[in-house]
């Protein structure tokens, strides 16, 4: 797929996600657009694109099960959740009995997908906060002119761009996927905190869409291992092998 085709596909997907009710309806719409074929043929293109766009558009659909092969997924703290095929304001994820452990490949694929979703969600929050900062006036000027506000948004931007580089480098392999999910979770949690602060009162209401993103980040972070757990797991791996795997070379 060349850059122009990719761009076109990206626009079509984003439009569909924005115009279709989340959950099973969106799932069918994406299937019609060829989601499953794309996933089978070009997962390296399909997963980053589709999951990032879910985050950016604020939509959701039960696509993670297509990537991992199951809707019963490990969650933080050794617990399990199931992802049902229904609509829900945040995500249709519920506690459930322990399921069958995922294969290392399925786990890695799921972590990459969840990572892209977290990144997209972080970007959606940053865009909301940025627009608000430019729009909202206090003390006779836009709050975007205050350095404390600017630096919070700048730090969010940096964290998300860093996570994007880690996700892009996650090609195959278990450790790169683990690090990618951890980097994305860390960035999205930071984005939640900073953007919530910049949006202040209005961002604390249920009318404003920020809270949906914030709560989704909390769920996505817990799925397939939380940032805290994955970071510690990476640390144990470094300690056990006596050196930090570079993974990335020029």
């Amino acid at each position, binding site marked *: 797929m060349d850059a122009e085709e990719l761009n076109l596909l990206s626009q079509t997907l984003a439009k569909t996600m924005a115009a279709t009710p989340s959950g099973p309806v969106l799932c069918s719409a994406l299937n019609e657009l060829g989601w499953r074929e794309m996933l089978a043929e070009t997962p390296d293109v399909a997963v980053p694109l589709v999951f990032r766009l879910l985050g950016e558009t604020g939509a959701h659909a039960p696509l993670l099960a297509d990537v991992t092969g199951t809707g019963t997924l490990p969650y933080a703290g050794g617990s399990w959740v199931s992802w049902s095929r229904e609509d829900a304001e945040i995500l249709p994820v519920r506690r459930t009995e322990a399921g069958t452990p995922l294969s290392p490949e399925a786990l890695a694929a799921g972590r990459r997908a969840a990572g892209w979703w977290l990144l997209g969600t972080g970007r959606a929050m940053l865009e909301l906060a940025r627009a608000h900062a430019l729009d909202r006036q206090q003390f006779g000027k836009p709050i975007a002119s205050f350095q404390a506000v*600017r630096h919070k948004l700048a730090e969010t931007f940096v964290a998300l761009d860093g996570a994007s580089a880690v996700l892009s480098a996650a090609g195959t392999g278990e450790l790169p996927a683990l690090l990618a999910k951890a980097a994305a979770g860390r960035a999205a949690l930071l984005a939640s905190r900073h953007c919530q602060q910049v949006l202040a009162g209005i961002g604390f209401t249920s009318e404003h869409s920020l809270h949906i993103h914030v709560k989704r980040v909390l769920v996505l972070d817990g799925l397939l291992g939380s940032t805290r757990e994955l970071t510690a797991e990476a*640390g144990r791996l*470094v300690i056990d092998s*006596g050196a930090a795997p570079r993974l990335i070379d020029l």
Partner: protein
Amino acid sequence: MDIADFRAGLRAWFTTHDLTPPPAAPADVGAHVAQLSRVRRELWDAGWMRYGWPESVGGLGGPAVLRAILGEEVAARDLADSGFFTLVEILVPTMIDYAPPELAAELVPKLLSGAEQWCQGFSEPGSGSDLASLSTRAVPQEDSWIVNGQKVWTSLAQYSQRCVLLTRTAPGHGGITAFLVDLDTPGITIRPLRTMDGAEEFCEVFYDDVVVPSSRMLGQPGDGWRVATDILPYERSTCFWHRSSFLFSRLDRLVGEAEEPDAGAIGSAYLSLYTARARCRETVRRFDTGGKLGPETSVDKILLQTAEQELFDSARDLIPGAVELDDESPWRQEYLYSRAATIYGGTAEIQRNIVARRLLDLGKEQ
């Protein structure tokens, strides 16, 4: 030469050429500079130091990424101070782009081959972050310029033969002019300053009626601001790759030395460093394929400086006392030096200002 051949050849060469530094106190800058000269000389004589630089300055050509790989291999073996080793990355491109070609051809090989050290005289007592306010004056007189003023924090000035100096020749950003000044010129006084890590790395440098030939001007009168900002793409590609490699070597060392390494802290330091490295690779690759680097490299800078401080904070936590009680511990000097990572090369706050203004397009500050 392609990347894989270069790396393999270099690694093979290192197996028969041991450049391990002789023992020296961590804060002995003189010893570090001597070692730096030795490493450069050996690498130059063997050709490795010449790859990635154009033939016009004594190089052997090839992509800049070869220099990043050389830096990585040097860092992996701890052969030279990582900050000092990469100084050429910010000095040589200035010469290639702005010096008269004969001057660059004559002098750059002396720097690359370790025969000379050079320094960068930008900051002044009154001009740090606000570099464009600098006031060291240069006034034309026949075919020379007379320089008067004071620079500060000029790293390695006391060991250097030459300095890339920014001067004021007219008001405003467009009134800054750069020169390559010989530091043995009469009227120059260099006074080393002791830093908090116990080293004498940077200096105050006083310029009193210093006569600089016009042929030493870098670019045209008024090009100085561009000279200063054009360095950034180099600092933030090849230099950062080298720095991240150095930091990885310290993470390895930390894991080896910590008696009870905490998985959360090690994992977090690793994640931060790995993130900086992933970002840096994107930047190096973009640069290497002819892409222009701009304000987006402030992201790289923030990621790397944050990772550096987190790593040394963890070292202090996990090797208790090494930093504050053991005078001779390398952790002490490196921990303290890491405190400067958010200061030199544009402070952490200035980087965030750039991200806010240029990347997030938030308009003017209050």
